């Protein structure tokens, strides 16, 4: 793939929103600073949308997260498909009632009379020195809630395709964007190409061990897998892409072959997504495992500011490599 066919994740999300809004008048965008007079978002993900689609469909909001998600829910009940930005994932905590008690539950509580086809875009991720309240990965909280889907793409094509699918999905989808890798280029998506929700992607096939990752951890895992390969260890790398629902079939088929699995995420380990995946693998494949499933996640502390601490907070390629080697060392 030549450089000219590469775009950044930020550009891919902008393109997905642009294409969706151009194709479907019912798609709306709202959130803090999303319109062009406010620069189309703090890093410009929504740049150009309000100029092209007008102030009725693209609206900057007050700093009012409950009001933002409430407005998205209400508009969706009246037939629209709003994409609401909650600027940073930690700010979802301010809107948890709207997300968890309302967006996720209205279909069930109404007996299917209403549904909430909204997308909640949010950015996060350690690496920019923003400390304890601006870069947490909180996906497990939402994955633990019946009625909302959670996706976390690692590259431009998936970001585009998952956004298109998320907007078309009839239920609420939390769309997690990794801030530090927004500007990382990767293969451009085919125009209009959807990536189905709940479907993982096998990035590199392997026989000895399965590494399951998502979001920025995919890039760390890719680096680790390359080093392992050079050392004669064949690791299969699965990019989960969707956290909830997650692709059990792809993961279980892989681990059934390799007999070893490592789950990697930036979120803290205890009670995390890795715990769920590990539990299911043990339940389904206990007799075929050659070693207990391993989990790697962020340190169990708030994200620290000081650079050496922040760097040590989330798993790195070397941690993943070491974890794989220890899995293989198990008899």
């Amino acid at each position, binding site marked *: 793939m030549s450089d000219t066919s590469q775009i950044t994740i930020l550009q891919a999300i902008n393109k997905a929103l642009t294409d969706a809004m151009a194709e479907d008048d019912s798609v709306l965008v709202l959130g803090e600073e999303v319109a062009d007079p406010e620069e189309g978002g703090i890093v410009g993900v929504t740049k150009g949308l309000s100029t092209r689609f007008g102030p009725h469909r693209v609206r900057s909001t007050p700093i009012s997260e409950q009001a933002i998600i409430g407005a998205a829910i209400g508009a969706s009940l009246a037939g629209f498909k709003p994409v609401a930005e909650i600027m940073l994932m930690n700010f979802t905590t301010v809107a948890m009632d709207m997300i968890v008690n309302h967006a996720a539950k209205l279909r069930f509580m109404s007996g299917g009379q209403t549904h909430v086809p909204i997308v909640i875009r949010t950015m996060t991720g350690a690496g920019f020195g923003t400390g304890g309240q601006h870069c947490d990965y909180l996906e497990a909280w939402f994955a633990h809630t019946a009625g909302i889907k959670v996706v976390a793409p690692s590259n431009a094509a998936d970001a585009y395709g998952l956004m298109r699918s998320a907007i078309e999905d009839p239920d609420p989808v939390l769309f997690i964007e990794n801030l530090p890798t927004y500007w990382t280029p990767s293969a451009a998506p085919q125009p209009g190409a959807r990536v189905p*929700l709940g479907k993982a992607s096998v990035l590199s096939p392997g026989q000895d061990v399965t590494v399951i990752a998502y979001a920025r951890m995919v890039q760390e895992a890719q680096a680790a897998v390359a080093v392992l390969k050079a050392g004669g260890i064949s690791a299969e790398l699965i990019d989960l892409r969707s956290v909830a629902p997650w692709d059990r079939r792809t993961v279980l088929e892989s681990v059934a072959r390799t007999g070893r699995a490592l789950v990697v995420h930036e979120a803290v380990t205890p009670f995390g997504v890795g715990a769920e995946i590990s539990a299911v693998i043990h339940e389904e494949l206990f007799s075929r495992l050659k070693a207990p499933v391993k989990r790697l996640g962020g340190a169990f502390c708030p994200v620290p500011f000081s650079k050496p601490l922040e760097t040590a907070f989330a798993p790195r390629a070397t941690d993943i490599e070491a974890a794989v080697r220890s899995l293989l060392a198990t008899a």
Partner: protein
Amino acid sequence: MTAPTITGVTPDAATQRDIYRRMALIKANDERARKVIRAGKLVLPYYSPRGQEVIPSALSVLLTNDDYICTIYRGIHDMLAKGVPLKDLWAELAGRVTGTCKGKGGPMHITHPKSGVMVTTGIVGSSMPIANGLAWASQIKGDGRVTVAYFGDGASNIGAFHESLNLAAVWKLPVVFVCQNNEWGEHTAYEKATSARQIADRAVGYAMPGARVDGNDPFAMYAAAKDAVDRARAGGGPTLIEAMTYRFHGHVLGDADAYMDKARKEAAVAADPVPRFRAHLIAEGIATEAELAEVEAAIEAELDEAVAHALASDYPTVEELARDVFAPEAVVGEAA
């Protein structure tokens, strides 16, 4: 109770009778609900709206089925005034599959889009942020619909109230915020929880019209509601109405309401707005005793039918646990 003289805001005779019919329905429904629950025929958390009949009745005569409401757990009067069918409502109270929500929502989550009841929330204050979104949809479509958000005085102290009023004012949304000030937030008296002298004063902070009215006076309530609904329909933005009323019963059925001042409660019950308006209609020659008795008898008959229908209906099957969590076609990747 005297009809205000301002031309154009006094409900005509037919509208007054319509308001009374809705009030009588709410009162009779409440009395029936408490009786049925106390008799042990149904088990549910029940938040009585008794005493607050006028507010949604005088407002709903200004709305159509296309207009939206978002209400709260103490909202059965709002639903009835808006036109949720009694049989569907009662079947939902009974947790039956014939209920508005197949029995899956229950009394605190009645939804009935056909009559414009879009959300009933059990979370204090949460009717308002969603009402804004419905109103935003109407603003984009230019469909002239109005959205009403009902809530209590306690809800004016939660963040969602402030975020919602601010956004509605900034976006000039066609929404009417109706605070039913019944003097009690669960077990806590208004003055112990609310710094504002009156909740209507909070409208000033959001640069929107605010009015405090006697929510137990159908004429005052109708006039205030008409002003707000007309403004919203004409694109003039939101209004905050503080409708003064009084909750005749404790927070939830079974609550001994020892915290409520006895004399204050007795005075409120003595001024019961339903018989008061009834007497007014007869005294003013707007309806006869026989006509109103007929209306009330019809309501009782409809209630008999609704309760019998609810109790005779089936419960949902356990398969319903897995339904309506997501759209049926959208379970990609779950099956291993």
